């Protein structure tokens, strides 16, 4: 495939070459229009994204721990303080647990649903709508409901899921949900998985549909079992979809904030993540520390996003 395409592209290219100058206006103004077209976005993004990132990093290096002006340059002190603070380490640990659960949960559920629909389940469009629908709800709105569902009262006053478990005589399933110190953060992942599994399903379903029927038929004619068909034909075709899903879900999960604020509130200890800590520090006027947490978050997201960008860039160039 890769050997035939470039030559096919090159050949008409040669005949086009003389035509190129005709597209250019006299005086070399050909670049003016496109530059003007992208200029506003370049300026806006330059100021409001990269400029502000720079300003944030600058703030994070200052000695500025109250609403007054900066007391001078502090270097990396703020970062050193952060990484020697047990609470910050705890919130990083929470973030890691949450991300892992959220990723595994959405990918496996999303894949399972897509696979079931792919197996020509009846009423496909209905299920597709049902699974996708939670995505239309904002995290804050669903958080309000899940706050009630994940209520940790047990016994008489139990409500939400704990009540359900009690009525079903599954009392052992009742638990303190997000107030548990060690695993509480996983309870926050439950609504997040509920909300985004449908989206991952849609991605995988599109992936499945993009695989031509001929490939499967060819594999079957060659005598591949159903498992071998998936293992050697379908899964490899789905891997770009899976990568996109991981990137999208992963970066959303690293930035989790609204869901936690809606369910547990900003000062709750067991559900702390860097984003909520950043908010608390900002609200109390500790701007340097808050900016430092923001920068750490940006770096963590970059670790996930940059390799993806590099790989897509390479792919595009190869094509």
């Amino acid at each position, binding site marked *: 495939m890769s050997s035939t395409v470039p030559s096919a592209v090159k050949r008409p290219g040669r005949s086009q070459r003389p035509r190129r100058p005709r597209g250019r206006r006299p005086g070399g103004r050909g670049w*003016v229009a496109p530059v003007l077209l992208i200029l*506003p976005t370049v300026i806006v993004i330059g100021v409001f994204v990269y400029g502000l990132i720079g300003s944030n990093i600058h703030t994070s290096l200052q000695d500025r721990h109250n609403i007054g*002006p900066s007391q001078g340059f502090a270097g990396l002190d703020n970062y050193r303080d952060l990484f020697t603070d047990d609470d910050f380490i705890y919130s990083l640990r929470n973030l890691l647990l949450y991300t892992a659960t959220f990723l595994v949960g959405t990918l496996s559920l999303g894949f399972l649903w897509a696979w079931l629909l792919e197996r020509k389940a009846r009423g496909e469009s209905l299920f597709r709508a049902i699974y996708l629908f939670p995505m239309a709800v904002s995290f804050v709105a669903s958080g309000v409901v899940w706050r009630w569902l994940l209520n940790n*009262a047990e016994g008489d006053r139990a409500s939400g899921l704990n009540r359900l478990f009690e009525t079903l005589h599954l009392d052992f399933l009742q638990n303190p949900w997000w*107030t*548990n110190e060690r695993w509480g953060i996983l309870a926050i992942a439950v609504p997040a998985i509920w909300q985004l599994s449908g989206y991952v399903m849609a991605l995988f379903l599109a992936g499945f549909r993009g695989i031509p029927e001929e490939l499967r038929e060819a594999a079957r004619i060659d005598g591949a079992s159903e498992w071998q068909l998936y293992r050697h034909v379908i899964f490899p075709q789905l891997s770009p979809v899976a990568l996109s899903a991981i990137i999208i879900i992963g970066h959303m999960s690293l930035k989790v904030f609204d869901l936690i604020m809606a369910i547990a509130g*900003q000062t709750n200890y*067991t559900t702390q993540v860097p984003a909520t800590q950043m908010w*608390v520090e900002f609200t*109390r006027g500790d701007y340097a520390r808050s900016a430092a947490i923001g920068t750490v978050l940006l770096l963590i997201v970059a670790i996930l996003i940059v390799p993806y960008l590099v790989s897509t860039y390479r792919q595009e160039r190869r094509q």
Partner: protein
Amino acid sequence: MNATRKALAAGLAALSLLAVSACGSDSESGSTDEVEVFTWWAEGSEKAGLDALVKVFDDQNPDLKFVNGAVAGGAGSDAKNVLQSRLQNGEPPATFQAHAGAELTDYINAGQIEDLTDLYEEKGWNERFPEGLLERLKQDGGIYSVPSNIHRANVLWANPAVLEKAGIDAGKTYDSLDAWIADLKKIKAEGIIPLSIATDWTQVHLLESVLLADLGAEAYNGLWDGTTDWSGSEVEAALAKYSTLLSLTNTDRQGLDWPDATQLVIDGQAAFNVMGDWAEAAFQEQKKTLGTDYTATPVPGTDGVFDFLADSFTKPVDGPNPAGTEAWLETIASDEGQVAFNKAKGSIPASTTADTADFNEYQQTAIKSWGEDEIVSSLAHGAATSVNWLTDITAAVAKFGSNNDVAELQEGLVEAAEDNKPE
């Protein structure tokens, strides 16, 4: 050619949009009859209080125009963030709401609000407010705000019917935490929640009451000026009692806010609740009668002490309308303003000259205590410490709520004091 022109037009349109949005921020209206009052009072009894104030203000100043700058949400934290960005950009409102006392420290240090000492002299306010309150409002010898009301934080709300059910005399008062804890355990044995509580700040509120009850007023005050040792054994003993009390509360506390916790007492699901006297409004709204449906007494061990907090208004430096600001502050300090606001909000007037004859029964008891009791500053509501210190304490208390480690709580409190202690 056509494409170029289209692109140009698009670029120009985008740029002009930017320019328009940039211009939107300088509201150089120039009219000096506007008085923007910035609060987070957007609903409930707080909104009713503000409306009542505005009515008095309009009567007293027909030529000034009140502008409501309220920012709702986040229990005031959203409003504080908006306020802070406005102050730093040099666009302060005419006046803004803040808790009186140490919460103002940051604004003062940043040079964002004016010293009102001269205004107090000039208007004769020093005679209108009680000495003890003025003392607590002072920071570095100056007074920076005018109080609109007084709330009491150390109130114990109880449901007599529930107490009877557990075999406890409903009229009983406790002179120490230990006696109270003994009864709470009896109530727990009956399968009733002994003490209802809600999310983190209400836990700080309970901790504050326990510290006050166990250490006494003088040592409690010492916590904030450095004369009481946070790492000492007295504090340790108080924290142990706090831990016991917390174990006698509802387990779903993190998911509740204060009205939910008060509701548990109203509904008879819990026996006691410790909350400030704004809870009175909740009982009143549901047509409950003081003495029969509920009782309100000082938290055990704090009889004779009034744990106070107050809302107050400030004068920002370089405000848009200094005369208008002073007019608003005068309305706040006036008897009409104090009475109108507090009748609606359920708190009591800060001034001693206001006529309180037709205030309700609970408010009368509060007014009496305010006149007689020893006054201390509330921690959970910004009177005792700076915002920073309170944030650190809240973090330690929230952590304790999930791991129940008394030693770690004390360590956290000691650290918070070291980081924030005024020198």
